[in-house]
Each structure stands twice: as C-alpha cells, then as structure tokens.
C-alpha cells in the first residue's frame, strides 16, 4: 500500500524554480499494476524516485505499508529499498565487471545473507529467468534482453512487494521488449505491485490503471474495470 499525500518536489535550475511534483495525492494498493505516462519533464521519473525512496519530497507525507517513511533516517530508507522495493532501469545498470550471477547476488550481499543461501537463491533466479547458461558471462557479453532479464532477476531476488520500472523496454527492440513486459507482468500476477513509467502509450495501456502526468501534476487517473 502506497499512500502519497500532498507531495511536492522542486528543483532549482539556475534562478528558475521547476516544480517537478506539485501537490501529488495518490494511493496505490498492494498488487496493483500501474503505468505512469507523460512527456519528459512531466515529473513521472521524480514520482518514481520518491516512491522508491531514492529522492525525498520537499513537503508532503508518504506512507508505505502503513508506515510514514518520509522522514526516516537514511539507513532505514536503505533497508526499505533493500527489502521492499525492486528497481528496473532503462539502461539496466549492471555492474560491468561482475558476472550475471554476481550482479543478481548484489542485493543479497548488501542484506548480509549468508553465502550458502545466496548461492541457492541466485541459482533459483537464474533458472526462473532462463539465464543458467549465461550465469558466468559479464554484461558486455549479454544481449539487451538478457541484460534486462539479469536486472529483473536482481530486482526481484529480495522478493520485494513493489517493482518500480523506469522505461524498462526503452533500450530494447519491440519483440524483446514484449518478452520483458511479460516477465514483469508475471511478477504482478504473483502478487507484486508493479509500477511502470513510460512515454509509450501502447505499453502504458497494458496496465490496469493508467496515470497521466503533466507539469508535475496528475492529469488523469483511469482504471480498467476488467481487472
């Protein structure tokens, strides 16, 4: 359950003040599949970063699973990111010198999971995302689709309750992009909240709830009744 209450976020560009988020009120219940759309500069990525606790709002309240997280200290926020939130990026953000398996293992290392358990969980993830053959390859030796699969495996290895995807197919061709979307939607089917930021209307339309943004405000918020 994500509850945003009067969230604002402003940036200063020289002497100009940009309202990236302007009084946002939003409730996303657990297990929802939401797409956030809008042109660049509409504040959709900032919204995602605030939900993911990478950025702090200038004012407003943010409750995650009933807990006020806006003013938590940095260490606590990091712990929540680790345990409840999984990020998927447009440019994958894999560590180039680590193998696919080691990239997937990173969140487990950060959480202090013992070596033997890490091994088991990474193996499971490799299996689930059909990366077994590529486990010992570095990102440079992987295709775009494989890289995003590694990134999704990494985002889900901690079994988070929320997956935040920022243009997850932006660097992939259409067919591979569709495959990646299927993977993400499968996560949603198993109960994870899925929030996707995109400016691709077709992609956004796949979500059960579509939020359109412009100039830091929510323009429309539509839900499919077929859900």
């Amino acid at each position, binding site marked *: 359950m994500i509850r945003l209450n009067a969230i604002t976020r402003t940036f200063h560009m020289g002497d100009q003040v940009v309202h990236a988020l302007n009084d946002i009120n939003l409730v996303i219940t657990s297990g929802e599949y939401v797409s956030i759309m809008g042109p660049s500069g509409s504040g959709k990525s900032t919204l995602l970063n605030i939900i993911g606790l990478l950025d702090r709002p200038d004012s407003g309240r943010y409750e995650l699973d009933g807990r006020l997280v806006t003013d938590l200290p*940095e260490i606590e926020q*990091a712990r929540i990111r*680790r345990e409840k939130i999984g*990020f998927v990026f447009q440019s994958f*953000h894999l560590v180039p010198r680590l193998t696919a398996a080691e990239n997937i293992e990173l969140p487990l290392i*950060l959480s202090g999971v013992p070596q033997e358990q890490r091994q088991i969980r990474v193996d499971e993830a490799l299996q689930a995302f059909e990366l077994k053959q590529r486990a010992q390859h570095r990102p440079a030796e992987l295709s775009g689709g494989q890289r995003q699969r590694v990134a999704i495996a990494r985002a889900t290895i901690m079994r988070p309750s929320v997956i935040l995807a920022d243009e997850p197919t932006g660097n992939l061709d259409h067919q591979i992009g569709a495959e990646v979307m299927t993977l993400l939607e499968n996560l949603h089917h198993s109960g994870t909240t899925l929030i996707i930021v995109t400016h691709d209307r077709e992609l956004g339309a796949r979500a059960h709830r579509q939020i359109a943004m412009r100039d830091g405000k929510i323009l429309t918020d539509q839900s499919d009744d077929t859900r």
Partner: protein
Amino acid sequence: MTLADTLQTSFRTVLSYRIRSLLIVLAMALGVASVVVLTALGDGARNYVINQFSSIGTNLLVVLPGRAETSGSFLGAVLGQTPRDLTLKDAQLLGRLPQVRRYAPLNVGAAELSAVNRLREVTVLGSNADLIPVRHMQLAQGSFLAHGTERNAQIVLGAKIAREFFPRSQAIGQRVRLGDSRFIVSGVLASQGESMGFNTDEIVIIPIDYAQQMFNTTSLFRILIEAKSHNDIEPAKRAILAALKQSHDGEEDVTVITQDAILATFDRILHTMTLAVAGIAAVSLIVAGILVMNVMLVAVNQRTAEIGLLKAIGATSSDIRRLFFAEAVWLSFAGAVFGSLLGQLGSLMLRLAYPQLPAWAPVWASIAGVLVALITGIAACLWPANQAARLDAVQALSKR
C-alpha cells in the same frame, strides 16, 4: 553488509582493475622498500663503523702529543708555547699508572726493506711487545717482539710483505735489511686487511728504540693505552693528563682520545643519518599515498552510476564508504607486504654485494615503513570514500 562480504567484494574489485591496482601496489611497495633498504644501509654503516672501532682494541685510550701533530709549523712558537714531544719516558710513566693495564708507544715512518734481491718501500711501525694485545692484532706465525728485549734486532712482517719477499720459503729467521740496519724476521702478522685506514698487511714492526734511531727522533707518534676495565677509562684519562702535565712542567700539551667517546659520536652521527634517510624514503610513501587518493577519486568518478545503483538496491552511505575504504586498505596492505619483501630482498643483495657491511634493516624501520604505508593509504582514501558515500543516488543513476 557484513565485514567479510565488504572485504571480499572490494578485494574482487581490486583484482578486476588489474593494471591500476598493480601500479598502485608497486608505488606503495617501492616506498616501503626504500625505507627498509635505506635504513638497512644506514644501520649497516653504523654497525660497520662500530665493529671497526671495536676491532682496534678494548678500553683503548690514545695519547697524542699536543699540537706537535702539525709538526713543522710554527704554531707553538706563535702562541708562545713550547711544543713538547711525547717521549718514551712519558710512555713508561703512563705505564705505571694504576688504571693502566698496558701501553704501546708508537712511531711511524717509511723505509726501504730489502732481502733476497727484492726491495720496496714499507711503512715502519716502532713499538713494544704489548702492541699485539693493546691493538688486538694477531700473529700468523713466529713470535712478536720479545718483552724487555727491545734492543734485539727483531722485525715482524705484515702478511703481504712476508708473501712478497718470501713467496716460497719460510719467512721466520730470515735476514732482511731495513734502511741501513739488519734485522731477523721473528714473526708474521695474520692478514687483517684494512682497519681504520691502516693496512696492517703492508707494514713492518720493529722495536721502538730501533725506530727512533732510524728516524732520528725522540718523540713518539702516539701512545696507545689499555685501561684496566671499562670503568677505568675516564679515571685513566684524567690520570694520564695529570701525570703528563706534571712531567711537562705544568703544561697540558697532550690530547687524550678515548675509544668510547669516538664510538659514541659516530654512533650518534650515523644513527641520525639513518633517521634522515628513512625520513627521505618516507616522503616517497606519502607520494604513494597521494597517488592512492588520486586513483580512488578517479574510481569514484568512474563508478558513479554503479554507486547510484548500489544505493538504489539498498546500500547505505556507510556501505559505500566501507567498500571504497576496504579497497584502499587492500591496496595499501598489498603494497606494504610486497614492499617489505622487496626491502628484505634489497638488503640481502646489499649484504651479498658488500659482505663487510651488515645491512640489516632495523626492526623499527620495517614496522614504521609498513605502518606509514597503511596509514597514508587509508588516510588518502578517507576523502574519496566520503565523496562516494555522499553522492546523490538519483543524479548518480542518471550519469551514463
């Protein structure tokens, strides 16, 4: 993140940037090695000098005639003093002092030595029987000048002289001519090589009376005195000065040098020198530390996106700080260990190249070198690691 995982992860990072890591470790190692080798050199020189001094005798005092050292000058006359020679009588007087175990008067000159169709110029030492124990000399064969028989025309040859003049036959008992006098070879010195600028292999020793006669002088070059014990050195020095002042009509015109004082001075000088070279070498360690800082700053810049990602997947600022910190610790540690080994190897090579130089790095220097390497490496990383930890996750992630 557990400590073991932090160390392991950063160790793998170090390994993955192979060339960069190798160069830093090399810079660190050379710094540590230079501290070790230079202090080994300095301390070796110190020990070498001390050994040399100890080898010339124990509890030794040397009496020099006042300012007659610069003989031929009119210094004494100018100052209105009478330059008074040290005489054999003075030596005998000193020999009777209670603090003195034995004494050896010394005269030095040069003369032609000839025997069996050979001839060469040699350094001639005139002395008495006690020169051997006082000066810690050793005989290879035969006997030294006999006690109380200074009138006997005996000569003792240095090892090299004996070899040159009598390559095939026994030198003992042979007749030789030194200057205008004839001598019988009574002994041959053991080869000792150079010692305090005096090659004992190329001298001959004759009784002091003969030497004084030959060089037509009554004054002594110096008197070597051995005190009864270490504690008697200072009293002996005072007694010698007092006795000679009395016999020289109340004028203090001799100089007494104690071996101890020289030794202490050299020890001090060479120890300071060792510290100085260690300090110079330590500068190179600090340079290496700055290199580490530079490289780590570049690394933070290079890995900005990675740092952003780590934060996104739940790394705390202190996780990031520790990761970079651990990386610097590994690099410095490897540099220190490798440098110590390199330093030991360098000292070993010094000892092999100059066997007479005991070039062992003092323990304090090895420890200090390693510690300074670790401390500078770690200190140099504090700032870059902090920079990394303070990076804004959103901005870091947007950097490609």
